[in-house]
């Protein structure tokens, strides 16, 4: 068997500054945690800016960002790596996690609760002060360089009890909580991301507030900041506001005809 094979990580570098408007002290907390080699847990509803925050931090720290979208069939081998056979020899291929450890990049496990519970345990030795990744299959013990950073995210709003992090996992992380931004901030973000006028952005944000009011009356979640940005971008390209809200927000939120009509009426009332 040949030597370990590592793919380059340079394509994971972020060269241009991603737009990010801090909501609180999250940037300082992240920087401090990184300096002290602590792993980070991002909590918050979908579309509130967790992934964008990671991109921004990767740019700020000038580190490659390797993102893994977790799903319920994600195995430990998918994260760590496996042998492949090419032209008559076996080659070890690093998984995304091993690659990040080797090159001292940021590894971001998105929606980590979706992964199988036995898979999440793989990150345990990386997430405490040992900062190592044992690779059982080729007997290697990877030691993480100082620049390596492990970040995971999850959405505590999911009601299912199954989609919850084990205490032994979550107690290893520095947690940063994300919420939908305050209205003034959200207006700023929406108009900066899409280029629409602030007063239109303000109406969109009020519309988002209305849908968030409906969270207990039939909607699973209210409109996220991401959806608002989508709607705003449609508007900036000349789509009628009511139409943009319908396509970018209402239809993404629900399929229920009654709820759809009500949500559409709400947006029509604002514009």
């Amino acid at each position, binding site marked *: 068997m040949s030597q370990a094979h590592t793919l380059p990580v340079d394509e994971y570098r972020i060269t241009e500054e991603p737009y990010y408007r801090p909501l609180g002290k999250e940037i300082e907390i992240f920087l401090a945690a990184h300096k002290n080699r602590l792993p980070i847990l991002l909590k918050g509803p979908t579309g509130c800016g967790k992934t964008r925050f990671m991109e921004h931090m990767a740019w700020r720290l000038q580190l490659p960002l390797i993102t893994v979208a977790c799903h319920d069939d994600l195995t430990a081998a998918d994260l760590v790596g496996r042998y492949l*056979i090419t032209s008559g020899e076996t080659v070890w291929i690093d998984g995304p996690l091993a690659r990040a450890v080797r090159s001292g990049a940021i590894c971001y496990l998105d929606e980590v609760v979706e992964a199988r519970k036995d898979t999440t345990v793989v990150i345990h030795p990386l997430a405490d002060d040992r900062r190592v990744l044992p690779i059982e299959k080729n007997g290697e013990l990877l030691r993480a360089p100082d620049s390596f950073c492990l970040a995971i995210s999850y959405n505590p709003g999911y009601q299912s*009890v*199954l989609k919850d992090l084990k205490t032994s996992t979550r107690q290893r992380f520095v947690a940063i909580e994300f919420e939908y931004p305050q209205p*003034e901030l959200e207006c700023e973000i929406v108009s900066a991301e899409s280029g629409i006028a602030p007063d239109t952005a303000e109406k969109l944000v009020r519309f988002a507030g209305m849908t968030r*009011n*409906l969270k207990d009356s039939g909607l699973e979640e209210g409109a996220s900041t991401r959806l608002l940005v989508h709607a705003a971008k449609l508007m900036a390209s000349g789509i009628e506001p009511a139409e943009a809200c319908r396509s970018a927000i209402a239809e993404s939120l629900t399929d229920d005809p*009654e709820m759809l*009509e009500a949500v559409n009426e709400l947006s029509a*009332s604002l514009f």
Partner: protein
Amino acid sequence: MTRTNRATEIEQRLQAPLAAVLSPRRTITAAAEHLAARPDHELDIVIHRAISLANTNAELGYQFVQHAIEALDAMRLADVLAWAEQAVELYDQDGLFAATSFLERPERFADEVLNRANAASFDDTCGMLSIYINGLAGRRLALDIAEHAFTDTETIFLPRRISRFEDSKLNRQLYKATASFLWAQAWYGTFRLDANHRTLEQRLAAYDNPRNARDLFDALETIRINACVARDLPGLYRDWQRLQTLTGPVDYPTHWSGIIARLQRPQASMETTFELLPEVINDEVPLALCYQGVLMPGQVAQTMALRMEKDKAALQTSLAEIARNAVPSVASEDTQQPIDTEALRFEVRVTAKPDAPGEFDIQLSLGGQALGIPPELEALLQSILQDLGGFPTEYLVPAGDNDYDPQAIAAEIDADSESGLGPATYYPEWDHQRHQYRKDWCALREQEVEPDPAPFVNETLKKYHGELHHLRKAFEALRGENQLKKRQPDGDDIDFDAVVQAMTDLSLGLEMPPQLFTQLHRHERNIAVMFMVDMSGSTKGWVNDAERESLVLLCQALEILGDRYAIYGFSGMTRKRCELYRIKTFEEPYSKLVEHRITGIKAQDYTRMGVTIRHLSKLLNEIDARTKLLITLSDGKPDDFDGYRGDYGIEDTRQALIEAKRQGIHSFCITIDDEARDYLPHMYGAVNYTIIDDVRKLPVKVADIYRRLTL
């Protein structure tokens, strides 16, 4: 048959039922001749209906026959039948005269039917409207039916039907406009108390002619609210205006122009309206806008008084709670000493949110220190702010120990049910007519089934000896094990056999196959199943026996499979006494005790299914399993003593099942009710039920159905 013959036949068929009111000068000959011209199927139905009316009252039958031909000309057959039905209803309620005069004018009913086609009805719109109104902002408002549109600040009342426009779409819009206007009244503070805590009703009573004053006040407020909505919700305002242009503009007296301008200013409030009221008090009241509704200050005063009392008490309790937590040392050590009032003074600061008109940020502080506000308290504070526009000092005095006890409410609910039943869990119930939940409506208690040591289980196992053998075989075949799949294109490890072979192939100059990996295939039956067994009174006797036998066989099968399962029986009487009987929980292993409990299942009272489903889905949700099943064994429709039957029961059950589905639970129903085809597809969905026509087959079938369901 000639037409005359047909007419004679009609007359003869009706002769006997109508004999009591017929005489030589009062015949149905002419009517029969007209009717003879109608096609057979219509004729039969009409005669049939005439006879059944005559059985209620011969005169009703007679009038129906006399006017049936006009009715048939004016409307469809189904409407004619509805017309007859309404006549019977009128007869029951208001007597014969009302019913006959109604039957004498079928054309009126026909008009109404035509109108109805264009009308929008409350039932059709209220689902969407209640979501819409709750989305707008403010206190949650319920919707209900009343003769006039008005609001009491907790409920928006709307007419049952709106048929003002010829187009049903416009009528639907008028519903929305009316409801949103009434919401705006509550939101923009039409009913807010003044600085001296006087209600609108009291302030209007100070005028010589309070009714006239109310109407003028209403007209002025409408101008103000229109301006508010035009500013905050321009799209909604455009809709309002469109409807108003269709009904014709409203003219205001010329000297009102200055007044209107003042009302339209952003800083105008309901106080501005009161200041301006004397200037117009002698004017004629302008026409009402089409979406305006009526102002009912009396109703509002009542509702507000009740709510404010409740809000105040609730706020004081919450503050007491906060105070206790904030200064535990003071409270515990010196209970006899008066608490330092200065340190315990609450203050509330309200600041308007710059970007959301009409919304406010509320900050609570205790003894000068800012406090975080929990969400329930936030809603409460907003509600008080909406009523009073501020926080009077007496509201901010924490409650003493004996003042207000939130548990008193729970006790009240329990008071008229049987006492000593132990603590209950409360669940909401869906009211399909109001399109909303009744909060904390059902009290549910879990209890044990009294174990019965009779040898029922062994007898059943003996009785079904042959079937059991088959069952075991079938279920053993289902049981899977982990297997290492070889020669996979992708996998966790290398399949060395395959590699060796591939290398040989390669050296022979053949193409190397890509299937070189092994994959551990976990054959997991990751299933948790909840059985919900009907223990209502109607199962008494052989249904109960069949249910128990089914459970015995099922347990045998499930033990082979290793699926996690729980069994609960349900029954109850009224919403205050819903009972769940534990037979086996998920954690509990199958044991003699479980067998004795199965033996001990007895028929009890009624079938309130919604609350049971809600509770059992909650239990199921606490289990970690890929597939979750809720299987109901039942013998009939949902039914309970206090009106939980018919559509109400079915719709609540359906709603509970929809909630379960949202939580990822699959529901299935096994029933022995022959009529279940009428309602089960609506409740469980078209494929999620099985009807077993013979109770004796139930025990064997249930296990088999389970096997097929989870294949």
